[in-house]
């Protein structure tokens, strides 16, 4: 009898507690900025695609759900000709983000990806590419890489000597 009354009392008290649930979807869940949700492809500060099609994300993916094809523009800049993620296979482990040497592929705090058809979970490059630098603003891979790719002149990158004069024997 006593326990019954105690339970009723406790339930009654919960009326005045802060709510554990939220009014989803009207109200959104607060997710940590580094939450591993939907995968996006970001752009560098110049607005160019960051992805250089190095295939490291695809190699790192434990469920092999990333396929891409690298291509090269007339300046020698690499970009993915297509970039496909099969989200119906993705386990959101974030290994692709860890593997990415150019901060191109990033997992963002967005989990609203439900679809009625599995086929709709196959995302192509157009679906993945966003107009943002994502979590790593200011980073431009080609400023640091050895190749020029139309971004800089030889020897003009960060931490680069001017090109060697091969006719010189001076030390």
């Amino acid at each position, binding site marked *: 009898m006593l326990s019954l009354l105690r339970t009723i009392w406790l339930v009654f008290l919960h009326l005045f507690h802060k709510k554990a649930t939220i009014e989803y979807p009207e109200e959104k869940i607060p997710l940590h900025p580094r939450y591993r949700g939907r995968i996006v492809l970001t752009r560098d500060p110049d607005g160019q695609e960051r992805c*250089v*099609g*190095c*295939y*490291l994300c*695809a*190699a790192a*993916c434990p*469920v*092999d*759900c*990333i*396929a*891409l*094809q*690298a*291509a*090269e523009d007339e300046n020698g800049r*690499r970009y993915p000709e297509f970039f*496909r*993620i*099969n989200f*119906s*296979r993705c386990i959101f482990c974030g290994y692709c983000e860890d593997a990415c*040497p*150019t901060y191109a592929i990033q997992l963002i705090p967005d989990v609203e990806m439900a679809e009625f058809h*599995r*086929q709709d*979970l*196959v995302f*192509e490059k157009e679906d993945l590419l966003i107009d943002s630098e994502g979590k790593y603003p200011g980073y431009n*891979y080609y400023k*640091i*890489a*050895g*190749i020029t*790719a139309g971004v800089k002149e*030889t*020897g003009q990158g960060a*931490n*680069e*000597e*001017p*090109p*060697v*004069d*091969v*006719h*010189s*024997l001076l*030390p």
Partner: protein
Amino acid sequence: MPTIYIDSKPYEALAGKNLLETCLGLGIDLPYFCWHPALGSVGACRQCAVKVFKDAQDGTGRLVMSCMEMVKEGMRASVSDKDAVAFRAQVIEWLMTNHPHDCPVCDEGGSCHLQDMTVMTGHDYRRFRYKKRTYENQNLGPFLHHEMNRCIQCYRCVRFYHDYAGGKDLGVFAAHNHVYFGRETSGILESPFSGNLVEVCPTGVFTDKLLKEHYTRKWDLASAPSICQHCSLGCNIFTGERYGRLRQITNRYNSEVNGYFLCDKGRFGYAFVNDVNRVTRPLLRNQTIEAVDEAPLMKTLREMLSGEELIGIGSPRASIESNFSLIQLVGRDNFYQGLPEYPAYLSGKVAELVQSGALYVPSLKEIEASDAVLVLGEDIWNTAPVMALAVRQAVVRTAAAQAGKQSGLPAWHDLAVKEATQEKKGFLANLTVCPSPLDEEAAFSLRRAPDTIARLGFAIAHAIDPSLPSLPDISTAMRSIVNSIAGALRSAQHPVIISGVSCYNEGLIKAACTIAAALHTIGLRAGVAYVLPECNSMGLALLHAPSFDNATARVLSKPGVTAIILEADIYRTVAEKEADAFFDACKHIIVLDSMHNRTTQKAHALLPAAAFAETDGTIINYEARAQQYFQVLAPQQDIRASWKWLGKLKGLRAAAGNGQQVHPDEILQQLEQALPAFKGISRVAPSPDFRVHGQPIPRDPQRYSGRTAILANLTVSEPRPPQDTDSPLAFSMEGYPGIPPPALIPFYWAPGWNSNQSVSKYQQEPGGALRDGDPGVLLSGQAVLRLTGEEKPTAPPLFMDIPEAFEAREDRWLLLPQVHLFGSDELSSYTPGIRRLAPQPYIGLGEADATALGVIEGDDIFVWLEGKACSFPLAIRKGLCPGITLLPMGIPGIPVPQWGSWVKITLSEDAEEIRCPSKIF
């Protein structure tokens, strides 16, 4: 065998080797850069340091470069010594200070020796925070991409390009810490072996430009063992596939054949497989929609086949399985070669000699080890480039071996041996129609007409064995050359004579054999190698089928037959008029081919045949070595292997139509039973049901990516991968992860060794044979005798029919083909880079003829082919003997002439005959 102690453990080592190759052979991982098994040691990169101890009591030891240290009995070394490890780590850190952060955009990444070595030494974090050295890159032509920033100055590129392959236009510039490897100015690399720089360079300075166009990492390539299809040498290659396209060809090591290197035609000539000109659907001509489905196709084919008389035209570029399936379909008496009478006769003659057992046909490795080489007529630089590379090694190594013997230096001590050798060279006599880059290595190089070269060959045979008929009319100057060549061959231990069929001259073939017979009388076993035009020319010749002329004669005398033409463009080998006559007389024409060409236009029914990367097959190289290639692409649409189509046709013909598919190994077994010349060919590779621990051999590497996304745009439920019932290889990454039998190795990879340097894990010793022996079965008579243990030195046949001396005619020129490495071959010319390097049509005349005719380079000259005047710009060929004219072979825009015939040349179209006054000879 000396016993050496590495980290206090005793090992048996091979005497005369250096410590680095010994360690690698024993399976001990030791980093290195500048050493290469084919190039030797120079001790330049300081990466392979180990500690060597004086004796068991010595606890201090000293650091040495293991590549420069000869193994000695009782030697004590330590790879894992603290100081040695620290030294190696320090060296790589220095090398990496200037290496750019390029791996994501570098084509070498994932198959990079520098990456492997960096990981192996444990250098995983850069401490260097200062500026990096940069270089301007060069445009090196259509095949190679140059990215000098990545260079680690190991010197391997110039040691291969300059020292090994004899190239002149790649060198070292500047000094100190800014050494530059490149050409003097941007430009196309001249050497036809430049593609090997991709594999020789331990990092990404030289990368494959063709791969760049559809770049794929090594771990994403499904690979299979294959055989190059562009000449008669049969170099072993790996084919790499991704997304249903052929992406890359790399070298597959075979110590007997190509070793570590390929030519650029073999490496880059694969673009035809992906070309838009492929036949992908069966076509029935003369109807509104030509592409047809299975049912109507079979109905028409049944009509074409049943009750009709069949003849089959075999192909020198189709596999032996396909050719034999055609024989099974049409019957032996109705099987012909797609070649005119004379070339078919010449290949048949070569096949007969090779098969007889009297001739010792050297492998490329044996040519490399030869100490005197005589080339009779064949322009091997263009017709068999890797053989030219082997001949160059013979020349270099003979001199190096002599120098090494005098100075006591081991052969791997590259720089010291070179120093001791200086400019000395082994013996090579290059007697050809046209100048060749090989002349630089030659002690004697002569430009003569084929008949004259054949006569010189007979004169050499006479000089060796005076009982043979002499040639009294040879000039004194020439006689001294003949005597010198004969003397060099006599004093050699392993003489090799190389000839071939590209001069359309039987005398050359006979002369080569006669010289070997003469050498036999003085107790020397001379090797004789005959170069043939196509990858399976030997296989087709061993079938001893009549020529196309016989087929035409038969069809013309009794029209109304159904002709089945296998993978051959008849219009490339046979004159247009004759080919037209043949096709017009046929009632039905069924053509199987992979590319659309003039012959396929004649087809009433055209069946899409698989290219070499899409099917399994066996081809037979110049030394009658049967080698199997394996499928790497699942063929698109209705493409099927020719032997599968022919099996289907056989079913239709027999009316039973059981449609039962046979495997290639069953065809080979039937071939063996039907034709004893092919005995042993079914041992060429393990049968389709071969398994290791119940597992097939995977084509995909362990790290193959994207399985669940590649086809997800088409259907999200992953379809079953293609099943391969024809070979023990699987289209999967699942299977036996260890080292498969040598014929089935799909790629080289070992833990920690992602680059092609991992090949040492597959070899018995670095630079030696593959474990369990190199793949391939020799079908030559000598090999058969060797197997049965009956090998005894039989004398090669003697020929006494010396041709008449060549005499230039006043009003006619002897028409000979000039084979071009780039352009003369049908399939490789689909690669844009090869097409770019191919010559434009020209007509070649010697300087004397050009002066006598009063024409200069570039003038339009008319040559009369088949009664028609064809105009081509003149190209003056230095040293070409008067009375001979050359046309480039296989170049579009030149009608197929009768090679070896006498043609008329005029300066204008109105047939005014000209007489050439100068006949100096």
